[in-house]
């Protein structure tokens, strides 16, 4: 819509909308060219928030040129349910709406991403949630209770750990950690690595940003 009749004079505004069906595979809207808009008034409606532990953070980004990096111009408060965000910004020439989806709904076990050499078989089970417990079971490669191995996980490590008769457990302090089993006398392994990854959050949401671009009033538009 182009403009409207205000209380005393013509208001020179453009009304635009940006939609985003936020999901792990879709986190940015189309791009809106703001032209000479001096001010952008945004009403951002977040609906259909879904997920086991949902969290949606809407970020409005801008840039002056298609070759530039996007800059964050507005970051909304994290929403865990449907809600409306309102703000006003000085827009750069181009604008888009993005969403950051959070939540810790794992569900997948840790994934072995690299195996080097030979040695004990092991399996990983447990939900890879932050601060959750991941269970590593060593099944072969030495007598439980007597054979030893070394391990390190991020900044934590241990040497000379006896292969336990009960499953070996570690606590996750971050995602993307590497659990490494190093060569040892009773573990016939050069190196084992198990990448602990948190599965993508299953959060999704619909985002409808209604944008009023306020432009300078030109002589031809005054009444």
């Amino acid at each position, binding site marked *: 819509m182009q403009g409207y009749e205000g209380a005393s004079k013509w208001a020179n505004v453009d009304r635009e909308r940006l939609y985003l069906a936020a999901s792990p595979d879709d986190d940015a809207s189309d791009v809106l060219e703001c032209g*000479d808009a001096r001010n952008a008034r945004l009403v951002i409606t977040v609906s259909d928030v879904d997920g086991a532990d949902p969290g949606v953070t809407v970020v409005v980004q801008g840039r*002056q*040129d298609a070759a*530039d990096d996007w800059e964050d*111009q507005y970051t909304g408060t994290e929403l865990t349910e449907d809600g409306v965000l309102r703000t006003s910004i*000085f827009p750069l*020439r181009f604008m888009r709406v993005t969403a950051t989806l959070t939540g810790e709904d794992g569900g997948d076990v840790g994934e072995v991403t690299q195996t080097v050499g030979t040695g004990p078989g092991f399996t990983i089970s447990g939900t890879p949630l932050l601060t959750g417990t991941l269970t590593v079971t060593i099944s072969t490669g030495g007598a439980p209770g007597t054979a030893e191995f070394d391990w390190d996980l991020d900044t934590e490590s241990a040497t000379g750990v006896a292969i336990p008769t009960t499953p070996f457990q570690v606590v996750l302090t971050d995602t993307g950690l590497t659990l490494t089993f190093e060569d040892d006398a009773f573990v016939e392994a050069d190196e084992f690595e198990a990448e602990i990854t948190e599965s993508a959050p299953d959060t999704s949401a619909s985002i409808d940003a209604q944008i009023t671009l306020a432009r*300078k009033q030109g002589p031809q538009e005054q009444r």
Partner: protein
Amino acid sequence: MSYQTSKGVHANTEPVYLNPTVGTSITADAVSEILELGDRACLRLRQNVTANAATSLATTIEGSEDRVNWFTLGTFATVTTPAAESKSFPGARFVRASFNHTGAGAIAVALSGEAV
């Protein structure tokens, strides 16, 4: 100078240059020339630091109604390594950039954009 948007709409913009008056390589604190915005209401600026042999650069965009008393309209993120940043600022009748140079050595910086 204005331009046509991708939708063919006339956009009334004016180029803005707020480079340091001493040149784009500064070795001490510096300011830009004073720019009169008139009835322009918004500045869209891009700062590009292409070299930094000093410690850091902190750039503040300032406004004034009388060219004497200056107030802060906004700041760019402090730069310690070559980097570019685009940011929008509210307008004022007069504006300038103030470059706070820390450390020894030259910093190459360019600051330009448009007013709307």
